């Protein structure tokens, strides 16, 4: 193990946390706006409108924080898991700077109100070209991470031809293999449609073709965020909690299923789009229900692993193991609470995916409530939990305050328990999402009574985030110097020897993934690409 992996991880995580800070500040503005506080006039000219705020919030949290954290954390985990240095430190740094350059390029128009198009940037809304090129560079950076991971693993394989790939390394490779397939849709949207159009090289664009390419990537991107959290839940948390991973074969199987099933399901975000036949939508519904299966496997396996921990700590009976977990460890507490809320996020996700039931919730505040349970808690609170050991580990310092960390974790959990169900309910009462609710021309009395709770929940989440950043900043700079214990992965009750060897074979699974994508998307994409005239000129009206 060299120091390079540590410095690379530290650099990526630092950018991720700065982005998260910008994301939670703008999040507070929106929550207050919903609660009826006239916040935006006092924020001009930095924040020009609610939509400017929402665009910054979405891009920084969902795209920048997640991607940089993952590109720091996963290569670090792979390197530790294989006990081998990254194949190319130079490639690692080139990757980092390509991504930073992309972030700066996209960030300037975003902050300057020239890309107020939300993180979904549906054309014909037309952002500044630098926004599209910048985000594309970030995606290119993730591909370079894939390259470095694969080269590292192949070098390890050559030295260890008879050994089973360790679980954490296996999962890291699956995460980036899945993402590399999934990101092709977004790359095509950027390179073929949005960049030439925003530069004025072509006169128009098309909404449906762009949306279809966007959601090709837009659903699996949630697995790109989730799988690194799962890596922590499967391979680190059981040991942190004092137990063992329940089943290595089941864990490997679930990740292979995510590799195969994450991408050919994106049209479930387009159930309400015209121009796509219901039959294709039903196929995507079917495959979305199929990807629920590895999620259920994960739920079982991770819970059973935590149970081994509770029992090892002296619990008896069916329930008490949960209370026996090491709740005073903020890293464990954060991640277990993230899992608890994610169970509800999973159930809500099934409702969204349920074809005609989607018409009740599509584009309502319900979706905002859902996204804050999944990426806003399962992912974000898990990543916070990871940083409670990772940042001390990288800085060579003790965590500044365990007590503040525990308060932070519970505040996030409690704030979300107020914030998310309220938004779910508002959605069921017909309130649209991504809308300046404080100024709508059609305010409904059944929304008004609940809106203050969004503000209170958002304020609690913001307070939690402030404690988090305080703790992180002080840990990285002034906390007591203390060498941290070496990273150790969880052993398994049922180990890799019980997993059939074919699970670890790459070619058949990658081939199957491509075949399913070709079936689910091929006919629709070919039809749209060959028959769609690019006739929408585009507008900048914000």
């Amino acid at each position, binding site marked *: 193990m060299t120091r390079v992996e540590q410095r690379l991880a530290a650099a990526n995580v630092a950018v991720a946390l700065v982005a998260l800070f910008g994301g939670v500040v703008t999040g507070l503005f929106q929550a207050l706006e919903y609660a009826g506080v006239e916040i935006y006039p006092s924020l001009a000219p930095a924040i020009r409108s609610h939509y400017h705020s929402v665009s910054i919030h979405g891009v920084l949290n969902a795209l920048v924080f997640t991607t940089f954290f993952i590109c720091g954390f996963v290569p670090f985990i792979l390197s530790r898991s294989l006990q081998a240095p990254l194949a190319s430190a130079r490639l690692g740094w080139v990757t980092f700077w390509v991504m930073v350059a992309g972030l700066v390029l996209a960030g300037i128009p975003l902050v300057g109100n020239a890309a107020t198009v939300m993180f979904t940037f549906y054309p014909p809304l037309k952002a500044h070209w630098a926004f599209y090129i910048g985000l594309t560079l970030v995606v290119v950076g993730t591909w370079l991470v894939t390259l470095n991971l694969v080269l590292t693993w192949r070098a390890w394989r050559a030295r260890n031809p008879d050994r089973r790939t360790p679980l954490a390394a296996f999962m890291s490779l699956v995460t980036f293999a899945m993402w590399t397939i999934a990101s092709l849709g977004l790359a095509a949207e950027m390179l073929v449609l949005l960049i030439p159009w925003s530069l004025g090289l072509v006169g128009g664009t098309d909404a449906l073709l762009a949306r279809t390419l966007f959601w090709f990537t837009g659903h699996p991107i949630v697995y790109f965020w989730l799988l690194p959290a799962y890596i922590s839940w499967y391979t680190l948390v059981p040991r942190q909690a004092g137990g063992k991973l329940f089943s290595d074969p089941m864990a490997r199987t679930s990740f292979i299923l995510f590799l195969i099933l994450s991408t050919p399901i994106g049209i479930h975000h387009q159930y309400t789009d015209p121009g796509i036949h219901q039959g294709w939508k039903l196929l995507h519904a079917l495959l979305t*229900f199929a990807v629920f299966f590895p999620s259920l496997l994960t739920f079982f396996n991770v819970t059973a692993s935590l149970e081994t921990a509770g029992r090892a700590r002296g619990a008896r009976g069916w329930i008490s193991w949960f209370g026996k977990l090491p709740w005073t460890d903020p890293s464990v507490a954060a991640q277990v609470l993230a899992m608890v809320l994610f169970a509800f996020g999973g159930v809500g996700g099934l409702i969204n995916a349920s074809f005609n039931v989607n018409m009740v919730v599509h584009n309502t505040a319900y979706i905002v409530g859902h996204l804050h349970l999944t990426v806003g808690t399962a992912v974000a609170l898990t990543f916070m939990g990871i940083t409670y050991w990772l940042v001390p580990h990288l800085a060579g310092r003790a965590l500044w305050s365990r007590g503040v960390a525990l308060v932070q974790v519970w505040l996030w959990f409690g704030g979300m328990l107020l914030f998310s169900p309220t938004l779910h309910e508002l959605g069921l009462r017909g309130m649209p999402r991504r809308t300046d609710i404080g100024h709508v021309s059609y305010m409904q009395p059944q929304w008004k009574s609940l809106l203050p709770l969004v503000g209170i929940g958002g304020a609690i989440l913001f307070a939690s985030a402030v404690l988090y950043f305080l703790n992180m900043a002080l840990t990285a700079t002034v906390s007591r110097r203390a060498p941290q214990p070496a990273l150790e992965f969880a052993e398994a009750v049922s180990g890799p020897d019980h997993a059939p060897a074919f699970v670890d074979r790459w070619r058949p699974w990658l081939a199957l993934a491509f075949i399913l994508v070709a079936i689910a998307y091929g006919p629709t994409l070919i039809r749209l690409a060959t028959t769609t005239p690019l006739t929408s000129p585009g507008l900048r009206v914000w």
Partner: protein
Amino acid sequence: MATDRPSTVYLWELAWILPSIALPVGMLAALAVTAFGAGINVAGDRGRIDPTKVAEHALFKEPGVAEIAPGQYEVRMTGQIWAFVPNEVRVPAGSTVHFWATSKDLVHGLFVPRHNVNVMLLPGQISHAQARFDTPGEYPIICHEYCGIAHHTMAGKIIVEARR
């Protein structure tokens, strides 16, 4: 379940896997029944339209409301920044309303809460939705996709009048 015997692990795995397959399959079957048995279906492919020539298209030459059969009303509607045309639909209680709509510029949404009208309006595509309005009252028509700085003012209403 605390055990180190992998054979026991296998049985626990199986006990979880089988219901985990049965549950999504059962839910999917229920969905298929509601979609194709009860006829509650999502938007489909209704053909393209040139977004720069919406006013020349037969469907959208004269946006408005028309009774096409007893109790059956057709609404031909366009969405543009930041208005629906028409923005008021008046029908008697018990009517079924068929919406035909498209966008002249950006992506908009056509959403009537609690009435299964939830469809995107994309420039270049024709959207269709239908719903029955039994209870007299006023129902909002909401654009539920961000479409620029005044998105939150893009709305209309359906007035369902009691039958005399």
